[in-house]
């Protein structure tokens, strides 16, 4: 996983609640077994008037020239709800997004994001509204600077950087770009010891061993 330390970028506001993963990447856009080739399908129901013909909806924020190159997304509550498809995270990353700032996230989405180096930050809805207004007033100049080490968001709207909180273990993982599987593999002896104890207690769990 690519580590995440700092990132400064153009920020696109898409402040709606309950944006689900079917909208972020519709199932029909997941055309191949691989994790790539997804960016064209990102937000397809909103981005295109006709997703089949790929006719662009110029009113959709990510189609506006002013937001081209956006790498931070500002959004509402319960972002990423619905289907567990990790393709939602892969599609965002492939489209250049590194940070999603929302009022709240659906748990599976947040976990998927973390495991792929996409930073999720929760802020109060009022702050998101203010930031959305500010970035919209001059998108290419009004960038946000996110620093995960300091847990701050820097912008010219105020002198002091804004702070955010993030789960410490998630922060470590992102900062170091840790591979979780590799990390857990260091505990394989503990896992085997657990199984030994557990098998005495719950033999029915262990198929093919009787």
């Amino acid at each position, binding site marked *: 996983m690519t580590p995440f330390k700092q990132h400064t970028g153009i920020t696109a506001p898409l402040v*709606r*609640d*309950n944006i*689900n993963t*079917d*909208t972020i990447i*519709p*199932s*029909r*856009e*997941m*055309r*191949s*077994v*691989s*994790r790539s080739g997804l960016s064209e399908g990102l937000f397809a*129901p909103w981005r295109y008037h006709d*997703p*089949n013909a790929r006719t662009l909806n110029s009113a959709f924020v990510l189609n506006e020239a002013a937001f081209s190159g956006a790498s931070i997304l500002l959004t*509402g*509550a*319960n972002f990423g*709800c*619905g*289907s*567990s*498809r*990790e*393709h939602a*995270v892969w599609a965002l990353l492939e489209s250049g997004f590194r940070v999603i700032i929302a009022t*709240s996230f*659906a*748990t*599976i989405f947040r*976990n*998927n994001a973390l*495991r*792929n180096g996409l930073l999720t930050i929760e802020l109060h809805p009022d702050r998101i509204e203010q930031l959305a207004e500010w970035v919209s007033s001059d998108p290419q100049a009004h960038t946000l600077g996110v620093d995960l080490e300091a847990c701050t968001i820097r912008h010219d709207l105020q002198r002091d950087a804004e702070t955010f909180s993030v*789960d410490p*273990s998630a922060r470590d993982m992102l900062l170091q770009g840790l591979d*979780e*599987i590799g*990390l*857990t*593999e260091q*505990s*394989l002896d*503990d*896992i085997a010891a*657990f*199984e030994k104890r*557990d098998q005495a*207690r*719950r*033999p*029915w*769990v262990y*198929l*093919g061993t*009787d």
Partner: protein
Amino acid sequence: MTATLFDKLWQEHEVMTLSERQSLLYVDRIFLHERTGSAALNGLLEHNRAVRRREHAFCTMDHIVDTLPGRGDDTLMPSGRDFIVATRGAAQETGIQLFDIPDPDQGIVHVISPELGIALPGLSLICPDSHTCTLGGLGALAWGVGSTEAEHALATSTLRVTRPKTMRVTFEGALPNSATAKDLILYTIRELSGAGGAGCAIEFAGPAIQALAVEARLTLCNMATELSAFTGLIAPDQKVFDYCNGRPYAPRGDVWDQANAHWHGLHSDEGARFDREHVLDIRALKPQLSWGTSPQHAIDWDGVVPHVIDAPDDATAVAWQRAQDYMGVSGGSQLSDYSVDAAFIGSCTNSRLSDLRLAAEYLARTGHRVANNVKALCVPGSGQVKRAAEAEGLDEIFRSAGFEWREPGCSMCFFAGGESFGDGVRVASTTNRNFEGRQGLGVRTHIASPLTVVASACAGHLVADISA
């Protein structure tokens, strides 16, 4: 120390604590399907890792495979075949059990895992699919994950999990005869909101839950994810133990007795503390129907679609307006004003034998047929369900009433780019999600129980059957 059911399950699976809130949990069963499981298996193979315990991992073909009779590897989804072939190849290479298309036990992952005894009370089970919480209906600790997490579980038999909060939803009163488990969960989501269970493991409790049949409990827990919950749970009881007894992967003999004794302890202790508690009075519960594009947009079947101006805040007003525009419904109208073009009985929510019986019984009792111009489909959840239904003659009842009778799978519960109902088509559906485009571009989905769907299909407009 008193403990909740969730506390007990957590503790039982805890290999070690990683931090104050995170633990390494043992994963007893892993289930995959060709939509997202292929990505997990491919990731594993790319990283040169093996499945640590092959005998604990299973895979099915349900999401992309067609449900038309005579189906094979080719599907109506243009690249569908690639997923099927890749999944089969990866399952063979990693040596895990695959319920392939012609397998008599093939079916929707959350339908076949309890049916085969792969999901059992107290077992931890993960699947890269958000409706894995269905199995909480057996008292299993089951939750949906992403493909990378599934890969982690395949490689290590564990997951690093942040402990959710606990929440109990207690239902007061008995479920009225005309209402089903589907109505109960739609009502719960409507009351608590689509994010009402965010970050929580929810235990459903109360006399109405104890009275529910096992399959109805699966329906209820299926939609815990529509509350954004980590999972839903129901304490297992004798009904569940009887349900599990004799299933192919369930224990037998002495080990069965041992398991049974153990499972009797799987309930929340008297006085156990939950982080959050809700009590819902369901004595007057009516059949529910959704009017909008979120499961929380549910109302009593004879209720009124809300006016946008009555929305509690601006964000809700915007969401309601969008939903009403998409659905082609207006505030102040009743859902019975809207004719339906299609009806769908199926999905991991409502495709089990009891669901099919409920709908078929309505057809037999009323003698009604599907209204003209309504396309109606019944898709059994598994090969087992299909054969059992056919043995009872349900397929004949459905067919002669004007329903198509399909092969098992997810079918048009969601749109993978293959078969769909069509732009603007209004569907009464037993599925769990009514998101924009969920069943295909422009499709307008009204979610409801099998009884409401069959009644609507026959009436030609949205309506519930309250004769019971």
